[in-house]
């Protein structure tokens, strides 16, 4: 069976989820050379309402272009977390923006305050999506850090390169911290499974 990896990036309109999807798809498809398909669903509102972008990657041609069972779910607000965590596979990864997501339905999740990092450390809340992209690059093996940086640089407006590069880095660092914090928890789970 061929390899297929399904990603959903979800939150509310205005959080930059569709741009995130495009950058991620470009990094995986153009810079890392895999098959990729990116779709989206959003309401008629420019801001607010729910919004999601989906990215499917594979080593062969992709038939069904939308995400099915999720290997990775990013939830940038509580509603999207509640709506979609049921679609995660058993070994799927849940990443939440802990600025807005207080109730995490499953134990095994990475809680990173993307929006707070963007607002406080980078002084621009709008780069929260790029911070999250940095975290995804660190927490998964689906995209190389080099590819994600190249894709971000190719898509962001001129003059914002440094800000966005910093945002990516901040995301990667935050992800490393989250990874360390979650190790004991994951280990204990593994012990439980054995006994």
């Amino acid at each position, binding site marked *: 069976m061929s390899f297929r990896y399904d990603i959903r990036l979800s939150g509310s309109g205005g959080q930059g989820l569709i741009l995130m999807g495009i950058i991620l798809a470009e990094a995986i498809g153009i810079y890392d050379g895999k098959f990729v398909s990116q779709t989206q669903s959003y309401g008629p509102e420019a801001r607010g309402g729910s919004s999601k972008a989906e990215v499917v990657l594979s080593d062969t041609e992709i038939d069904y272009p939308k995400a*099915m069972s999720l290997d990775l779910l990013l939830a940038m607000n509580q509603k999207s977390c509640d709506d979609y965590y049921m679609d995660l596979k058993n070994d799927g990864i849940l990443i939440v923006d802990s600025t807005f997501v207080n109730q995490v339905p499953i134990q095994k999740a990475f809680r990173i305050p993307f929006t707070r990092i963007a607002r406080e450390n980078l002084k621009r809340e709008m780069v929260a999506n790029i911070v999250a992209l940095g975290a995804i690059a660190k927490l998964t093996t689906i995209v190389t850090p080099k590819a994600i940086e190249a894709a971000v640089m190719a898509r962001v407006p001129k003059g914002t390169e440094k800000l966005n590069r910093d945002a990516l880095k901040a995301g990667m660092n935050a992800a490393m911290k989250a990874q360390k914090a979650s190790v004991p928890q994951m280990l204990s789970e593994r012990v439980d499974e054995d006994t």
Partner: protein
Amino acid sequence: MKKKTKKELLLQGNEAIVEGALRAGCRFFAGYPITPATEISELLSVRLPQVDGTFIQMEDEIASMGAIIGASLAGAKSMTATSGPGFSLMQENLGYAVIAEVPCVIVDAMRGGPSTGLPTFPSQSDVMQARWGTHGDHPIIVLCPSTVRECYDITIRAFNMAEKFRTPVIILVDEVVAHMREKISIDEDEDIEIFNRVKPTVPPEWYIPYEDTPRGVPAMANFGDGYRYHVTGLTHDIRGFPTSRPDEIDPFIRRLFRKISQHFAELHMGEFFETDDAEITIIAYGCVARSAKRAARDARERGLKVGALKLNTIWPFMRTPVEKVLQTSKIIIVPEMNMGQISREVKRVNKTDAKVFTINKVDGTIITPEEILRKIKEVR
């Protein structure tokens, strides 16, 4: 060193339609923005001026359709793009393009309807509007891509068919395919067939603008090239002037049909996926064709003999390929994001014992492979 002309790009369906149109030689676009077709206008407003083409944002879709007919009569390959509500407004002038035999391409990115309906959600509910939206007995060519690559290729084919048969060609794309991004490689040096309308070779005073030919398609002179002729929406004689003589009306209407119907084989595009030994065949088009392929794959993994037939040509209806699977399969499933516009056609041509089942989804979301699998289990 030779310049590298092959590019790998992550493109939206709408963007691939633009690339295909430019490649086919489109040099005139008139339109009015509407979700989910806006990206086509947006991109062409940048790209057309770069190739000495013309982009006009019109006051509405009625005028847009009129403008592309005028541009085409003057010799430019022309296109417009819209969604259901705008497509409704284009119907009157679409009929004019049919009767005056003006080549042009109309993209309808389907969203939920009726009326303004669901601007950002997909549907496949304009299948019959594309066929019969404009009044009067007429043939029409309607094509339907299901991947970004097909958006590119089919747009080129649409322009070729428009030019070859002197007819409007409609590209029906759904919101999923219009907005979906996939990787495609475009090679500017690739040898792609581009067809340009046949122009008269006789001197202007000998030119008979609507004269019958073996192909049924008269030679077409550009306005401004010195060939004076009359263009009208009234039923006309071979010189283009209105006629009320039955012996002129009948051959004219029949020629309009004949020029399309004698070329069915050339117009029909689609794909058989594992249909040879299939007991169950799914017939689908647009984004749902992708769900169908996936469902067939998943079903085969479970030991069920399932295949899929993808229709890239919607009208004229792909009767021969459909009849083929009707003969070899016991069960046919037609999933559509409408209440059954193509399934009725499948039932119409079914002269076998094959049972035709439908899946009709009208909630603004795509039909999933699971939903098709569930239907397979239910009916087999």
